[in-house]
């Protein structure tokens, strides 16, 4: 047997630079800033693959390029170079970064779900929780009110929001509940890939455990692939099958999560793991 299945997502040579770039950029880059022309390389030649049903962890300090990668994938920012292929989009032959704005909106609404660290970015705080999900469904072309209500109820139940509170706006919910509504909204259109950006950061430990437990259940139930950005190695250890380590806009190391944590090879990863409390 050979594991020949194509990855759900394949990112090739992603670069995001702020500045014009120069000849020296390639050779004398100091961290992620070129000392000659001052160009900042927020992402520098990033390539990775995510397979069906797998959780790929991304760790790295602030400014390492984790969020830049996520924002490029969610089409919030335009990369300078590189391509990203989804297995479920045009048979994986067209990069999502090479299509029209209207097509990008479609890709975003059909293929991906995003959960931000800050729920304000991912939710309409004054809409009801059900309406937050319905909005995502409408964006994807759903028009049947009954179907939308049904789907919203099903998803909010899956993230353990009591039915008595589904008509309330997220504004009145606790941080943990808001995060759960965000997760259910992200799942609304059966995405092939869920992008989770520091979703447990800032939550109480017990609430954090609840959210982690929920992510694990969702993965088992829906078989969705997950890209998980976290600076918390405990979260990565618990959820990620494989992990990539980013520093100064580049991937410096990747491997099985337990290998990264127990036998880190790169100086930065060693420093990171040794700082673990």
């Amino acid at each position, binding site marked *: 047997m050979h594991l020949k299945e194509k990855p759900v997502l394949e990112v090739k040579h992603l670069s995001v630079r702020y500045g014009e770039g120069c000849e020296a950029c390639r050779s004398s880059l100091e961290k992620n800033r070129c000392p000659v022309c001052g160009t900042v390389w927020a992402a520098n030649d990033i390539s990775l693959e995510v397979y069906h049903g797998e959780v790929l962890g991304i760790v790295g300090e602030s400014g390492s390029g984790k969020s830049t990668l996520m924002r490029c994938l969610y089409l919030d920012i335009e990369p300078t170079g590189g391509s990203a292929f989804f297995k479920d989009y045009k048979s994986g032959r067209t990069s999502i970064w090479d299509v029209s704005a209207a097509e990008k909106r479609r890709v975003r609404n059909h293929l991906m779900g995003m959960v931000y660290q800050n729920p304000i970015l991912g939710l309409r705080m004054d809409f009801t929780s059900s309406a937050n999900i319905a909005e995502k469904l409408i964006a994807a072309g759903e028009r049947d009110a009954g179907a939308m209500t049904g789907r919203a109820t099903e998803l909010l139940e899956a993230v353990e929001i009591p039915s008595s509170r589904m008509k309330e706006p997220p504004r009145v919910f606790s941080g943990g509940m808001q995060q759960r509504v965000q997760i259910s909204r992200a799942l609304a259109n059966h995405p092939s890939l869920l992008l989770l950006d520091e979703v447990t950061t800032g939550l109480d430990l017990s609430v954090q455990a609840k959210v982690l*437990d929920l992510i694990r259940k969702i993965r088992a139930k829906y078989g969705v692939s997950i890209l998980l950005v976290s600076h918390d190695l405990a979260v990565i250890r618990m959820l990620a099958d494989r992990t990539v380590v980013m520093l100064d806009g580049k991937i410096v190391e990747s491997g*099985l999560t337990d290998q990264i944590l127990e036998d880190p090879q790169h100086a930065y990863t060693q420093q990171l793991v040794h700082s673990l409390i």
Partner: protein
Amino acid sequence: MEILKIEGLSKDFFLHEAQREIRSCQDIRFSLDRGQFIGIAGRSGAGKSTILKCINRTYLTSRGRILYESEAFGRIDLASAPEREILYLRKYEIGYVSQFLNVMPRTTAREHVMGALLEMGGSEAEAARDAREMLCYFRLPEELWDLYPSTFSGGERLRLNLARAMVKRPRLLLLDEPTASLDDGSKSLVREMLRSLKSKDTSMIGIFHDLTFMEGVCDRVFNMSEGAFV
């Protein structure tokens, strides 16, 4: 029939901050037959766990080959196989048991064991049935099944770890000091269980501090000192 053949396995660690290389096991060679149990003994720091962790790919092998006869892939070098194949083997063919508990928060003992089967793609009902059978087999008291294992004693944790690893019926089981910190009663229970697994054709490599424990269970025992078999 040979299930595992280790050829010249060596592992060095390089610590960047200290700019130092630490040599762990060096030029290890042995082979394991189907249904065989090999024990590795030696003092702490001798490099025993390193061998198991290299087989499990928790550590990257510096030199040498770890040839495993896989049901799915045929002969495969665990030291260099693609990560996705290693993940597959961990899920379906190779089990790893240590004395430490590694559970998700808010997961009960029963869910922990069931989870191993659910990730293999089994149905909820099958997973529940097999988990129950395994928890009984390893004599974990029934009143503990629906509790969170963080409060369990060392012996209870170990039995839970064994139940989770064994419920998948792995072909190769790696035991990393599973009896450390157990009392004599629990140790004999584990010994009986390992004997019974062996009779079911499970191939095993185990690390034990306690040489007397291994008598009568292991087919061969290697002694390790300073990274090499002596």
